[in-house]
């Protein structure tokens, strides 16, 4: 292959390297106003009165909105949230009022002039407390704090399997809130044209779904039937934070409609930490069993999820957690339930892995515990139970390509597993694997992506795709795909994305689907374009279509290479004539997968990605500090269309995973975030990077574009359990709640000493 498999630089890297890329923060429109939001002062309170009169009188203020002067717009998966709260606030992060003013300083001053009187209500901050009789109700109209959600997966018969297991382990794990920390904070600009059509400049990861959500909102404004155009600027990081539509976006739209001027809202870093939705925490009970020779017999998992005050995607993470629970390793009998419980805490949404890192932490730590109970080496234990190509898992996933065994072996080899394992001398090794969707995911009714390709008179190719680039390199792999198929240089392919007016539909940048789905879509369109080119060239060269090839922008006949024509010339000839024509094609790729049924079974992805991470750690037993001596990440990627960009996803994911394991946590006190800055929220720096190596295993996925599968999320899934398992190997102590801080390690060591 000419260009697939090569490390082409990211297409927009030049603009970014020269400071020319325009992010939402850099965008200005004529007449633009600046919006700012006032948040709640209490975690749970009645709103007695809001007086905005002083704010309204401040010169430069053009609009002040509260829950009392806007139409009702319900949003969020459970439809339990409105952009500005009325009657009650449910969490510290609840939006209470908003202003639009001619400059950000005036907007901020206006906020301080808004007087809100609250009557505090009893609050609850722990989901287990919130489930008890007599706990304060968050949404009284529901009569309970437990959400009506159907999260239950039953495969086989766990009770029977327990009875026939030779070894059983059971434990409880806990993961807490961490957040995306996109370097570019949230923001948008909403702008209505004189006829009431909305243009929304956004950093969303779901332009078309957002378009639909905003269309619904426009109905409430009496603008049903008007058009919504979503234009994405360069996006300063996603990681799932932009997979929902958020209160601030609706607020910007409302302010823009009220003032009939463009309104920009951007978040400061403190606002980003305090008022955006983080990763879903979970309390996880897990038990697993195996037979005498180490084959898994059952896995039973029950979770309690702190849903927070309103509902976003966090409440749906169980639907993804089912994936590793049912299909990471071969386990015939599975039982899983999850309860989502309202509290007055912050509420969560999608974050890289979407529940997978949380579930895999419990599963892979438990696997090590089970291996120990069975007296089997943990690496051996994993190999015994590893998934294989061609199998169908209990949840109904049809595994096509699968290189899990190779990943485990590669990691074991590079870590010198046999020599380093089991010394308990302060140094240890550990590993953990992952499964994730690698061929899209039918979480919505559609998993499709559309592409339109046009070739111009000079042989240059424009590709219009519904996919979005959030930094992961979608622009580049799509260009490489089309360039490969059409035999043109990658530089000659321009990928146009990020505008719903121009580009065809795509469901969104989630589930690590973009390479698989968008490249398959681009490939489909490119093949059609190629067929058109050959149809034309056959006439001009007087050769049969099936004898033709394109290479280096030249169409030629395999039978007689002297019969050739430059692509640009061919196209110019086609359209500079009477009854001329253009070369264009479209293709919508939507794989033949199914949505999960009511029983949550079904093959919802066309392919599955696997991987294993292995770690060598050294624990300072006097201070509890954990140092990573070596980190190996082996990933089954099908085929690396661009190995350099794939590695970027793996290293980035691994560092995020290491942070999840060791240092990151949002610290809350009575629902208020106490560390809303980079000093106290411990995201890792360049000096914290351990010696890391990434291994790409390419078993070639038959359904993937050029054999490729997804990689966006897998990189951060197994890091925490791999590290926890390595720590156990090093000092015989297992920390079951993240992050594994030095304090927890030291405390556990001292308890172990006392016990001894």
């Amino acid at each position, binding site marked *: 292959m000419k260009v697939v498999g090569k490390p082409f630089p990211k297409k927009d890297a030049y603009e970014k390297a020269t400071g020319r890329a325009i992010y939402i923060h850099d965008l200005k429109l004529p007449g633009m106003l600046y919006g700012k939001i006032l948040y709640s002062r209490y975690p749970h309170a009645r709103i007695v009165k809001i007086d905005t009169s002083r704010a309204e009188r401040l010169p430069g203020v053009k609009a002040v909105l509260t829950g009392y002067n806007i139409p009702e717009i319900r949003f969020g998966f459970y439809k339990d949230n409105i952009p500005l709260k009325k009657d009650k606030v449910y969490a510290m992060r609840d939006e209470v009022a908003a202003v639009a003013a001619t400059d*950000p*300083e005036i907007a*901020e*001053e206006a906020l301080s002039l808004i007087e809100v009187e609250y009557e505090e209500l009893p609050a609850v901050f722990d989901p287990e407390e919130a489930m008890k009789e007599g706990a304060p109700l968050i949404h009284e109209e529901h009569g309970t704090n437990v959400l009506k959600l159907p999260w239950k997966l039953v495969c086989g018969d766990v009770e029977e399997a327990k009875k026939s297991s030779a070894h059983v382990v059971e434990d409880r794990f806990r993961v807490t809130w961490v957040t995306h920390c996109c370097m570019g904070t949230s923001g948008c600009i909403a702008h209505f044209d004189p006829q009431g059509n909305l243009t929304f400049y956004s950093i969303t990861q779901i332009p078309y779904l957002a378009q639909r959500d905003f269309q619904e909102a426009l109905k409430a404004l009496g603008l049903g039937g008007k058009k919504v155009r979503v234009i994405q600027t360069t996006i300063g990081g996603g990681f799932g934070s932009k997979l929902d539509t958020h209160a601030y976006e609706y607020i910007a739209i409302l302010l823009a409609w009220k003032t009939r001027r463009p309104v920009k809202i951007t978040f400061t870093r403190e606002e980003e930490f305090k008022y955006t939705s983080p990763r879903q925490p979970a309390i996880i009970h897990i038990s697993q069993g195996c037979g005498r020779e180490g084959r898994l017999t059952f896995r039973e998992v029950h979770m309690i999820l702190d849903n927070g005050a309103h509902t976003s995607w966090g409440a749906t993470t169980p639907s993804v957690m089912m994936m590793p629970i049912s299909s990471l390793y071969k386990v015939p009998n599975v039982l899983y339930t999850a309860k989502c419980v309202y509290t007055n805490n912050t509420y969560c949404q999608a974050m890289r892995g979407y529940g997978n890192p949380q579930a895999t932490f419990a599963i892979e730590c438990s696997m090590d515990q089970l291996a120990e109970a069975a007296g089997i080496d943990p690496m051996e234990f994993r190999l015994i139970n590893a998934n294989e190509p061609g199998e169908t898992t209990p949840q109904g996933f049809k595994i096509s390509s699968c290189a899990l065994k190779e990943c485990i072996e590669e990691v074991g080899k590079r870590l010198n597993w046999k020599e380093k394992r089991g010394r308990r001398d302060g140094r240890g090794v550990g590993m953990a694997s992952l499964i994730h969707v690698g061929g899209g995911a039918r979480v919505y009714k559609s998993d499709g992506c559309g592409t339109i390709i046009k070739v111009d008179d000079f042989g240059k190719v424009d590709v219009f795709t519904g996919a979005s680039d959030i930094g992961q390199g979608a622009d580049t792999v799509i260009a490489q795909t089309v360039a490969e198929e059409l035999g043109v240089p990658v530089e000659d392919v321009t990928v146009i994305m990020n505008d719903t007016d121009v580009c065809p539909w795509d469901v969104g940048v989630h589930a690590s689907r973009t390479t698989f789905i968008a490249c398959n879509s681009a490939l489909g369109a490119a093949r059609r374009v190629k067929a058109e080119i050959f149809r034309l060239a056959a006439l001009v060269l007087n050769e049969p279509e099936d004898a033709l090839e394109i290479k280096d922008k030249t169409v030629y006949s395999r039978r007689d290479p002297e019969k050739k024509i430059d692509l640009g010339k061919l196209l110019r000839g086609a359209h500079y004539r009477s009854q001329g024509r253009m070369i264009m094609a479209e293709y919508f790729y939507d794989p033949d997968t199914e949505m999960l049924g009511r029983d949550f079974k079904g093959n919802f992805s066309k392919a599955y990605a696997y991987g294993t991470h292995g770690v060598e750690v050294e624990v300072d037993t*006097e*201070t*509890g500090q954990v140092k990573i001596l070596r980190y190996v990440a082996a990933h089954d990627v099908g085929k690396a269309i661009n190995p350099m960009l794939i590695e970027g996803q793996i290293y980035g994911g691994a560092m995020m995973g290491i942070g999840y394991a060791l*240092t990151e946590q949002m*610290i809350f006190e009575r629902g208020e975030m*106490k*560390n809303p800055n*980079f*000093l*106290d929220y*411990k995201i*890792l*720096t*360049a*000096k*914290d990077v351990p010696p890391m190596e990434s291994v790409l295993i390419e078993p070639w996925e038959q359904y993937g574009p050029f054999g490729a599968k997804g990689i966006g999320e897998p990189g951060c899934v197994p890091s925490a359990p791999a590290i926890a398992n390595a720590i156990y190997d090093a000092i015989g102590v297992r920390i079951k709640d993240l992050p594994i*801080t*030095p*304090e927890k390690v*030291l405390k556990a060591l001292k308890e172990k000493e006392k016990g001894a």
Partner: protein
Amino acid sequence: MVKYDYLKARSVKEAIGWLKEYGSRAMLIAGGTDVMVGIKQGKFAPEVLISLRGIEELSYIRPEDQRLKIGALTTHRQLERSELIRERFGALADAVQNLGSVQIRNVATIGGNICNAAPSADTAPPLLIHEAEVTMEGPEGRRSMALEGFFLGPGKTALGPEEVLLEFSLPWPPDGAASAYWKHSRRQAMDLPILGVAMYLEAELKEAGPLGEAFAQGAPLEELLEALDRSEIYCKEVRLALGVAAPTPMRAKGAEAVLKGKRLSTEGLLEMGQVASEEAQPRDTVRGAAWYRREIIRVLPKRLALFCLKRITGRKG
């Protein structure tokens, strides 16, 4: 957003004059990495900022009269680069090389770090163990005092409202002395210490062979301590200072008394750590728990003593 006027002083006298004129409406600013952050966080709301940045005469590192004199406006980056400081005032070198980030160290000053008087100020424990003196100037003229009495509480110093800090002056240590600082943090950079400990040690090496060999072999901690116990090294003078262990950076004098004049041993160093952890008054904060801070204080003197000894023996070649 706080709007303030910004005046650039060309001399200390000019700054003092402005301080007198504006009184409590004004604040001094040097590198700005504390003051600007404090303003943005709503901690400070000055009407006037008086910048000392342009006063180049206050930026120097020079040995003079058996002492090391450091101008208050010397940046951490300048300190980081000083061979002199690395050689003789190791703890201070340790403190500045990991403070904030390169960008911060390029503008932040040692005077600013001390006057901001956070209990976590990295330069404070090293300066305390080196028995630094500070000199300041006000409308009434100059005065000096021991740094130890300079810290009055979190964010509070003995600097008068119309005074400008001029200089730190540290006695030149003898050849057999070295110092080291340990910043206990969660990340390798951009971090405040959970706990900071500095030790100054003047040692008499009666028989340092075993330890010297262990250092040469790159032995791990336990072996180094065994080697120490087999060597014969006396502590002529020891000073220990703690950061984030009390409302202000503090000297742990009770702990110092445990070892002063005695032969160095693992047991002795552990006892020193134990006494220091009891002398300290750490709190539970978002950044760390008191019990953990005490634990770190307990185990660190052993390591710090070894760092100091490595520097001392290394110097002898």
